[in-house]
């Protein structure tokens, strides 16, 4: 389908002619830039890329990508993406959603798309607030969050996007943050390489309605201490030199230990990250790591192989044709009992 594979495409080929209309300082700008930056290296012809979104600030995203794009209705983007991918498996389908769109009104569709393992990349921008409707609390807002609709503070227990995705049986779960361009690009590339639903929570700042919610992770001074960068096969170690710490599990319960700069984490029993761990419970424990007691894990928490929905669907079509021959309308209409008048 590529018009000419030899033509070198660059970031600007993926920039549409539309004016970007997020608020100044919005974390969405850097996410957009990073997505546009990785696109040329993924090897997918631009015409085979589809961005699908729901409703909300994040969902304006497709308008700014010079690919095929579909800005749909609130919460339903995963279902639209499923229809696209199931019928045209060769397309590279990306879903852009937010904590409100994806986990509140669209929670059901997110659940089922993830459990079916439809081969799409789902980017969930989590700013823990409703932006486009001007600042109400979201399903990821912390208890006590004061907003226009919760003047006395939110009383809902929040949902954790990563734990939710793991609970749905996600085959690829990752977390990254809006300001860390290099890390985000790595995660996006890994997500695209994964065959199956790749779920990425992107921690994103809303400078207008929930400014500073991820400050600890965004600030270079505190990032090392407040985040745990996951790398497959590497021990769960975090913190700047002189303040190194590691994660150990005691009967599956995580805790933090201090590590000297020269100490071997393995000897101290620090857990080695295994994103391919068969049991989702390992990633599930990682998902429980929260501030202030623990650093927040970023990177790929889980990456396992399972057949994709669209492949199994296509296999059923192919095997039906192999068994019965290509459908014949004349034969269908005359099948079963007929009679002549």
């Amino acid at each position: 389908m590529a018009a000419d594979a030899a033509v070198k495409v660059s970031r600007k080929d993926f920039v549409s002619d539309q004016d970007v209309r997020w608020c100044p300082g919005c974390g969405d700008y850097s996410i957009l830039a990073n997505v546009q930056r990785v696109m040329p290296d993924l090897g997918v012809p631009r015409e085979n890329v589809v961005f699908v979104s729901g409703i909300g600030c994040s969902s304006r995203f497709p308008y700014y990508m010079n690919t095929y794009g579909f800005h749909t209705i609130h919460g339903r983007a995963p279902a639209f993406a499923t229809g696209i991918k199931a019928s045209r498996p060769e397309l590279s389908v990306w879903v852009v959603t937010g904590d409100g769109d994806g986990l509140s009104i669209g929670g059901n569709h997110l659940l089922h798309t993830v459990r079916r393992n439809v081969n799409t990349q789902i980017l969930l921008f989590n700013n823990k607030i409703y932006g486009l409707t001007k600042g109400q609390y979201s399903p990821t807002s912390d208890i006590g969050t004061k907003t226009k609709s919760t003047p006395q503070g939110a009383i809902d227990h929040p949902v954790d996007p990563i734990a939710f995705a793991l609970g749905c049986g996600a085959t690829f779960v990752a977390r990254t943050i809006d300001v860390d361009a290099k890390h985000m690009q790595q995660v996006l590339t890994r997500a695209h390489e994964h065959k199956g639903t790749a779920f990425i929570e992107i921690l994103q700042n809303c400078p207008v309605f929930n400014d500073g919610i991820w400050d600890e992770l965004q600030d270079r001074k505190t990032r090392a201490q407040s985040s745990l960068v996951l790398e497959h096969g590497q021990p769960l170690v975090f913190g700047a030199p002189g303040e190194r710490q590691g994660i150990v599990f005691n009967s599956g319960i995580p805790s933090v230990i201090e590590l000297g700069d020269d100490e071997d984490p393995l000897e101290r029993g620090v857990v080695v990250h295994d994103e391919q761990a068969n049991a989702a419970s390992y990633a599930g424990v990682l998902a429980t790591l929260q501030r202030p007691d623990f650093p927040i894990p970023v990177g790929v928490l889980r990456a396992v192989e399972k057949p994709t929905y669209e492949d199994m669907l296509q296999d059923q079509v192919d095997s039906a044709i192999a068994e019965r021959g290509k459908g014949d309308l004349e034969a269908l209409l005359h099948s079963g009992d007929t009679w002549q008048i």
Partner: protein
Amino acid sequence: MTANDSSTLKPSEQLESVAIRFAGDSGDGMQLTGTKFTDETALAGNDLSTFPDFPAEIRAPAGTMAGVSGFQIHFASRDVYTPADRPDVLIAFNPAALRANVEDVRSGGMVIINIDSFSKKALTRAGYEGDPLPDLRERFQLVEIPFTTLNREALQGLDLSAREIDRCKNFFALGLLCWLYGRSMGATERWLGGKFGGDVLEGNVRTLRAGFAFGETTELFPASFVIPSAKIESGTYRNITGNQALAWGLIAAGVQMDREVFLGAYPITPASDVLHEVARFRHFGLKTFQAEDEIAAVSSTIGAAFAGQLAVTVSSGPGFILKQEALGLAVMTELPLVAINVQRAGPSTGSPTKTEQGDLLAALYGRHSQSPLPILAPSTPGDCFHTALEAFRIAVKYMTPVVVLSDGYLANSSEPWLIPDVASLERTQIEFAAPIDVGEFQPYARDPRTLARPWAIPGTPGLEHRIGGLTKQDETGNVSYEADNHARMIELRKEKIERIADALPPIEVDGPDSGELLVLGWGGTKGSITAAIEEVRTQGLTVSQVHLRHLNPFPSNLGDVLRSFKKVLLPELSDGHLGMLLRSKYLIDIQMLNKIEGQPFKIAELTHAIRELYES
């Protein structure tokens, strides 16, 4: 005796038509018995119409009124348009089935009961205070047959449990009915042979034949009946239900348009059978997707339409309403798809297995703001096939979602269907927008004739574009909040739908083009209305008939046709949705005959209304 030997030693009496109702517990196999009798009747060359009437509960408590399941078949040596108002024959498997149905039987008709099930306890359970039989013997030709005992005797010696044996008794009754009306049992035996083996097969075949032989030898029936073949158009026929015909129409659309079909659906009564039927035929290259809910069903369907498939979603009343927001997006993004609503009685969950025509206004106006789309309604089970095909033709030609309004009555009733010649079915060449090398693609540039925008599918170089629910700028499709543009786009979408009428054939009036009375109908009421009109015509009334298939837009000459009659009668199974539309659009004092009982019109209700209006 062989299975196909329907000759009889007893005398036979010729009849023009018979209506039979099978009734029993929902676990008694009444739908199956009725369906198999229908197949044999079709093969005997009669015209026919059937109507299954079953409870929403899968297995309501045995022996109660709530659990009664019925299946009515009307067959004749002349044209048959409806399952008949009143059965001539009732077969009741228990007291509850008798009590629920016997008052529908025509006076003096035949009532066959399974006398084995008429214990005192069962009578009480059915709500009878005393023994109803003495009274019924006065009013009907009551035939008391120990079906349970006879069936057990016939199946002695087989390696079947008592329960398995008793489950066969419906086929004893089927065999008896085949004898009584001179039907063969060959199709039923072939079906059994394909479905069962061993003693289960043996048991069913044996009891079927025993029932037939019982008719031959018993003194309960002095004669059997002959219903000669009907004189109908020559060709190859089959039985088809509305849901099956819809499913096959969708499959046919894929073949005739040479494009894959994608069906996204969520199970709902009475529409699920369309999903089941289409799912059986994946070897046509089609894909079915059982979504997590109705919203995902329509959303995945719109996604598939965006991706270039022949996309269709199917549901019923409550499910259709859940789809409305997404259908609004399909209107805004001008994508071609078909949304089928097999209407059922509401509001809310209502009566899921009962029929109604109550969703017309919702289909037209149930989305927010101005959101026009074409609406079609099939009129007979077989017509569902052609309607599905036409819906797709309109969808791709005009780039619009199309709503098809079937109903619970069409869905489950069956009729002999003249199998269309595939070569005679219209073929449509789908034209996607072609790749471009230079310049900006204009996703909302329109065909000047149809006002359709191009169908530009992912995978096409140079046509990368973004669409969505926000107001579109004319031609570019970019987001626009400009006032004049907004008004223009609303107007363009409206005009696009209105222009569909230019390509519709003008309405043809059955009967005189003008005169005293026109009876107008739409959708699944056609059979009842046609039968009623035939009846009043034989009594000397000059009545014309028009049956609408296009509910939006209306055919261009509808207003002129309506104005050519002094009076217009419009029967609807709702509180008059179409009547309201026509009155406001054409300012004609249409007389509305509304029925909302979950059941089709009885012919007598219609003939009464026609006569009354005719003579007023």
